[in-house]
C-alpha cells in the first residue's frame, strides 16, 4: 500500500516504513539505544532526501525513547537533577547543530559530513565497545569474577569549579564536564539525526561515573528532551520534518521496541554489548566504504532554496 509523504514529496510503501521502523525498534529495545543511527542511513539509502530523513527520524527517536524513559521514571531510576543540566546544555548544542546543518546543506557538504560523522563516531564507539565486551566475555570464560568499577573513582575534571551535588547518583562533581557533554551531544544529534544514547551511556558510565542503575533512565530522558527540541528546530528552520513519515516509523518503532526489550532478557549483558558493537561497526564500515571507493557517478544534484511548493 503506497502512502504519499507530503514533505518528502514521494510515495513509499506503508508496510516498508512500518517494517523498518519495527526492525530498528526491535534492535533499539534489545540494546537500549534510540536507533536513529540505523534508521537515518536506511531512509537515505531508500531514496528519502537526507535532510528530510534526518529531521523526521528525530521525531521517531522521541517516540522510541518515551516509553522507556517513562518506565525508568516509575522505577525511580532517573537522576532528574543531572538530566536538567544535560538537557539545557544539549538544547543549546542542538541550536548550534541545526545552524551548522543549514550551512553544510548550502555548501553542498552535508552528505560528506554525515558520512564522515557516522564513520568517525560509530567507528570509535564501536571499537571501544567491542574491546570492552570481548574482554569481559574472555574473563567470564576464564572464570574471573568481573568487578564493576567503583562509582567514587574520580577523574581530574570532576574537580573543576562549580561543583554540584547529584544526590541520586551519589556524586559531588563539577558541572563543567556535564554541560560540555550535553552540548557536544546536542550538536552531534542535530547534525546526524541520532539521539546520541550510544555516546551518552558510555560517557556517563566511564567519564562521569554515574551508577549503573541511573545511567539508562537519565540518558533516555535526556534523549527525549533533546530530540523534541531538535524536531521543533528542524521544523522551524528547514520545514523538513515529515509528520507522516515520522508517524509510520514511530508506530513500527514502539511495537518493535517492546519485543526487542523482552528478547533482550535472554541474552547476557556482554553478549548484547558485543552484538551492538558489531552492528555499530558494520554501519561505520558501510559509511567508510562509501567515502573511499570511487562513486558510480561523480555527479550529484540538489534543489536549493526553500522546500517544495504546496
Amino acid at each position, binding site marked *: 500500500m503506497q502512502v504519499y509523504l507530503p514533505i518528502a514529496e514521494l510515495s513509499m510503501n506503508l508496510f516498508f516504513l512500518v517494517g523498518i521502523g519495527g526492525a530498528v525498534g526491535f534492535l533499539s529495545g534489545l540494546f537500549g539505544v534510540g536507533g536513529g543511527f540505523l534508521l537515518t542511513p536506511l531512509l537515505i539509502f531508500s531514496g528519502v532526501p537526507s535532510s528530510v530523513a534526518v529531521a523526521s527520524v528525530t521525531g521517531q527517536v522521541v517516540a522510541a525513547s518515551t516509553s522507556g524513559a517513562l518506565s525508568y521514571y516509575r522505577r525511580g531510576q532517573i537522576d532528574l537533577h543531572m538530566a536538567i543540566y544535560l538537557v539545557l546544555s544539549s538544547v543549546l548544542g542542538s541550536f548550534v547543530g541545526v545552524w551548522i546543518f543549514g550551512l553544510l546543506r548550502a555548501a553542498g557538504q552535508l552528505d560528506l559530513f554525515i558520512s564522515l560523522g557516522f564513520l568517525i563516531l560509530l567507528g570509535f564507539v564501536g571499537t571501544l565497545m567491542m574491546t570492552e565486551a570481548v574482554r569481559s566475555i574472555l574473563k567470564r570464560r576464564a572464570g574471573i569474577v568481573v568487578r564493576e568499577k567503583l562509582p567514587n573513582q574520580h577523574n581530574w575534571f570532576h574537580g573543576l569549579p562549580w561543583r554540584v551535588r547529584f544526590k541520586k547518583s551519589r556524586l559531588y562533581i563539577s558541572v563543567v564536564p556535564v554541560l560540555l557533554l550535553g552540548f557536544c551531544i546536542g550538536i552531534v544529534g542535530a547534525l546526524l539525526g541520532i539521539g546520541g544514547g550510544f555516546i551518552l551511556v558510555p560517557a556517563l558510565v566511564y567519564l562521569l561515573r554515574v551508577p549503573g542503575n541511573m545511567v539508562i533512565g537519565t540518558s533516555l530522558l535526556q534523549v527525549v528532551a533533546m530530540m*523534541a527540541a531538535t524536531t521543533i528546530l528542524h521544523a522551524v528552520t528547514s520545514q523538513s520534518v515529515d509528520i507522516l513519515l*515520522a508517524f509510520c516509523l514511530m508506530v513500527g518503532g514502539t511495537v518493535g521496541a517492546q519485543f526487542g526489550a523482552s528478547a533482550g532478557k535472554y541474552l547476557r549483558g556482554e553478549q548484547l554489548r558485543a552484538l551492538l558493537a558489531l552492528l555499530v561497526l558494520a554501519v561505520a564500515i558501510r559509511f567508510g566504504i562509501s567515502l573511499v571507493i570511487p562513486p558510480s557517478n561523480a555527479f550529484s544534484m540538489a534543489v536549493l532554496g526553500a522546500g517544495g511548493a504546496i
Partner: protein
Amino acid sequence: MKRLLLATLLALLAAPAVLFAALVAPAGAEQLVSQVSSEEVAITSSFAGQTLTIFGSIEPEAGSKQKFVEGPYHVVITVTGPLQKRVARKMTNQFGIWINTQQAVFEEFPSFYQVLSDSKLDTITNPVTLAEDSIPLDSIGIGKTSAPYPQSELFRGELVKLMQRKGQFKLNEQGVIFRSDTFYFAQVALPSDAPVGSYIAHTYLFKGGAVVAEKSNGFSVRKIGFERFLGLASHQQPLLYGLVCVMLALFTGWLGGVVFRR
C-alpha cells in the same frame, strides 16, 4: 470616361491587396485545437502517479476559406514542470576520500521535462530548429547558469542525465499517436514524486521541417485535503507543526508503553 478611370484606379489599388492576401494566407494555414485530460492533478494520500492525456486536432486557421488541411504533419509536445533552483555537483578524490569540489547552480531549471513526438526528432526537423525552440532535453535554453561556458554545458548535460535517471526527464519518440491524419493524442505519465506546481504542455506542429503552429495548455499538480493541509501547516505554522510532531511522538511512545505493559 470618368467612370472608367475610377474603375481602373480601383483595380490598380485592389490588385496588390489581393496579391498580398494570397501571400499571407498560403494554401494550408493551420491551427491547433488541443486539450489536457485534466487541468488539475490532485495528490492524495494514495497518490502513486497519474497518466494525463493530451489530445488535439489540426484544423484550418480560423477565418480562412479553406475546408481541410493537408499534411503530412508531425507533432512534438514538451511538458515542462515548475522551475526550481538546482545545483549540480562533482566529486573528486581528495586525500583518498571523495568530496564535492565543483558545482554549477542553475536558476529556473525545470523540475520535470518530457518531450513526446510521433517519430524520431531528427526525422521531423533539423537540429537547428529544434534548438531554437529549446526542445531537446539538453537544450541550452533550459535553465540559466552563471557558470563559465564549457563547464556550464558539462554540468547541464550531467544534470539532465541525473534527472533522466530519476524519471523526471524523458524523451519519448513514440509518445504522440495519430488517430487520423489530423487527430492526435499523447499520454504523459506523472510519477509518484512528480513535483508540485504548474505545468505547461507546449505543442509544436511541424510541416516540412518547419513549425507551422503552436499551442500551450496548462495544468497543475497540487496536494489536496490532508496532504495540502500538512504541507501548508509546515510552511505557515512551522512552530505549531513542530510542537504537534513532538506531542504525537510523546503520545505514541506513552501509548506503546501502556499497551505492552505486562
